């Protein structure tokens, strides 16, 4: 009887296919198409370029004033201030979201109700990599989600259930490693980076096989003895082995050049440089890596021999534009050191480096591509260790050729002190005195000159990210909890909504659903969806 039943099932299968067909989830080709499908947002920045610029047109400068919240999701987690830094991924009406303390959810994008929730059982001796128990989101491929953890693992989950498919350790959390970024999925690789530059660690960028979790390659951001770049360090394997260079923010990808672009963090110790004379490559640099093998193709160092904790962990923004009357492939970055940079992304040639804050550190980048330092800290205050901007995503509007960045104006005095190198204990190497009254601003920069086109000021140094739309809108968040819309061309403030908690590191996501453009913003312990009235 049972056999007969099986036979019947087999016979019926072809007829039943439409009912039971497995949904395979997005393929690599779908991620490659970026924003082509308006109902999807499949990777951290929406596409591989890091521009965070949506082609959607329904919400415009004219009607954004009518934007209304349609639901709020509460995480139930307890992180104060810094809570929700993730960019939700969107596919087929479902949001895939990570939260602080390695919670995660699949959420119905129409109602804000969860399909499943996940919480990792974390050890009680985490260091958080001297940061906070945050996470910036999933990577996604097919039915698999990918998430890094505070105890420095990489997980693969089934997007339909939240079940763990595989779990690999990236590094030993007990000596200061942690992981918080959203994995970058390209074809047959899951690319991740690591936190830990405030500890005696050595940073890296890794590629893993999506199906098995097998590690395919590793790029060490601090060279080994004798390797290229080691000449910028003391000839001491111990110093190299604890040289820092975290890679804790998402990179971007150029499929044509097959290059990954990634920002590298501070050398260790952060403030005490006497034990590591030299430029300390590849700290505070952008590196371009061959996606297949992880080989270094080129690098550019923004802050040689950093002693101010000015990590370069920013989203690289890839743009094709006319540059001095020639079409060029560009990569842009507004850096924690207070300069906005434009480089040729094929070879790393520096094309522009101009200040975007009132930093007194350096006023220009010399012809040799190195900063002309006017103030090493002895001439008054410098930008604080959180920098002139930070990891919060910037955005780029291609028609306006404007780069939008959240700027921080701060004033700090650094006092270096040689640290003790104890595994698992932070080695900042000194202290910083920060003036309490800083300020912030959303700034629109002309990419060809670095000149300020417009700004909107905030009463405190701000960590909110930026998203733009082709309709001519900028969505930004501030440190007082406002989610704000601006006219991208003029900077006119058009709308705001008080979310109730700082918008910290997060930037808006936008997509179409049932013919309505939705906009999402995480804040504190909430994720709120907005749309125009029906």
């Amino acid at each position, binding site marked *: 009887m049972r056999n007969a039943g099986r036979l019947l099932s087999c016979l019926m299968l072809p007829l039943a296919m439409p009912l039971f067909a497995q949904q395979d989830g997005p393929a690599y080709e779908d991620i490659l198409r970026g924003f082509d499908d308006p109902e999807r947002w499949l990777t951290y920045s929406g596409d591989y370029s890091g521009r965070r610029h949506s082609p959607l047109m329904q919400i415009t400068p004219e009607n954004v004033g009518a934007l209304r919240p349609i639901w709020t999701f509460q995480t139930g987690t307890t992180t*104060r201030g810094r809570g929700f830094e993730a960019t939700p991924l969107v596919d087929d009406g479902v949001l895939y979201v990570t939260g602080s303390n390695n919670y995660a959810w699949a959420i119905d994008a129409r109602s804000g109700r969860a399909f499943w929730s996940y919480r990792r059982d974390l050890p*009680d001796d985490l260091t958080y990599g001297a940061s906070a128990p945050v996470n910036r989101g999933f990577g996604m491929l097919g039915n698999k989600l990918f998430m890094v953890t505070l105890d420095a693992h990489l997980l693969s989950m089934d997007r339909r259930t939240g079940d763990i498919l595989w779990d690999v350790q990236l590094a030993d959390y007990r000596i200061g490693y942690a992981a918080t970024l959203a994995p970058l999925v390209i074809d047959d690789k899951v690319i991740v980076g690591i936190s830990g530059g405030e500890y005696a660690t050595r940073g890296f960028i890794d590629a893993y096989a999506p199906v098995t979790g097998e590690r395919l390659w590793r790029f060490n951001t601090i060279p080994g003895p004798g390797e290229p770049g080691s000449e910028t360090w003391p000839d001491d394997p111990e110093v190299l082995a604890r040289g820092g260079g975290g890679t804790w923010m998402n990179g971007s990808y150029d499929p044509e050049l097959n290059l990954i672009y990634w920002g590298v963090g501070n050398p260790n110790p952060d403030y005490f440089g006497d034990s590591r004379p030299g430029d300390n490559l590849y700290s505070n640099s952008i590196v371009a890596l061959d996606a297949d093998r992880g080989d270094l193709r080129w690098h550019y160092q923004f802050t040689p021999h950093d002693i101010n904790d000015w990590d370069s962990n920013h989203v690289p923004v890839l743009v094709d534009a006319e540059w001095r009357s020639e079409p060029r492939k560009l990569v842009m970055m507004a850096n924690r050191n207070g300069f906005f940079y434009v480089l040729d992304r094929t070879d790393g040639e520096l094309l522009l480096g101009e200040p975007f804050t009132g930093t007194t550190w350096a006023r220009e980048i010399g012809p040799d591509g190195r900063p002309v330092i006017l103030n090493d800290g002895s001439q008054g205050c410098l930008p604080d260790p959180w920098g002139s901007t930070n990891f919060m995503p910037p955005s780029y509007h291609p028609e306006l050729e404007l780069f939008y960045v959240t700027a921080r104006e701060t004033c700090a005095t650094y006092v270096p002190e040689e640290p003790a190198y104890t595994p698992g204990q932070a080695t*900042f190497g000194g*202290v910083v005195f920060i003036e309490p009254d800083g300020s912030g601003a959303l700034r629109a920069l002309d990419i060809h000159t670095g000149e300020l086109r417009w700004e909107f000021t905030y009463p405190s140094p701000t960590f909110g990210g930026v998203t733009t739309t082709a309709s001519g809108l900028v969505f930004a968040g501030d440190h007082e909890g*406002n989610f704000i819309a601006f006219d991208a061309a003029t900077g006119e403030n058009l709308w705001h909504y008080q979310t109730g908690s700082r918008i910290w590191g997060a930037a808006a996501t936008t997509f179409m659903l049932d013919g309505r453009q939705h906009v999402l913003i995480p804040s504190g312990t909430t994720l709120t969806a907005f749309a125009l009235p029906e």
Partner: protein
Amino acid sequence: MFRVAGIGILFAALCLPLVWQGAAAQGVNPYAGQPRAVLAGGALFRAQCATCHGADGKGILSIDAPDLSLMWARDGVNDEYVFSVVRDGIPGSIMPPHGLRETELWMLVAFMATLAEGGGDAEFSGDAGNGRRLFAANCSECHRAGAEAGGVLGPVLTGVTRRRSPEALMQSIREPSGRIERGFRPVTVETGAGEAVTGVLKNEDAFSLQLVTEDQDLRAFGRDAVRQVARLGESLMPVFGEADLDDDELADLLAFLHGSQ
């Protein structure tokens, strides 16, 4: 400083581990007030705590890291409590656990105790009864203390001697504009309709301002209805010179505040 810290840790390891076990059970810091332990604890503080809580322990507002100099005045905060928070962190929050040895933790606590701005062991020998009368006559229009009725323009002064030293309090009375805490900074808001409202700024963002006004009410303004916000350098609190309150009267006032609960 690193060498000093090393000596301190060595000293502790050689001389004091025997005391600690019994002391821990009672929650007493075996190194409380010991200069070498405080030095060693200071080095640990700079290495492990200062990035978030500031080199002076006064917190960093923009990252929501609290002021540690004020915590000692809170009920239930003692050496044992601080020891356990540093060791275990605050689960789910940004405050991580710290894998320091117990001797190091106690030395860190010994240092953190020196950050307390409170009166510590200061003696308040003034006449609290007279202080109460002086408070009612001079201060209560804007401040409250204990069960005394009072105003809401200035901070509540109940138990303030546990949070501020006598010298700092006397300085605040003689020179109120010398140090004005956030939440009590004076502003005058001029509206588009021509109204001018003075008060203390409780909160603000890019779109709004929240004040307690001079006539002690809550008042909020949307920035689109505001023409100008003047941030005043002078505190709304009047200066009390020797002629207004002499040093003996100040001592009486502090004695009253010290007893207020």
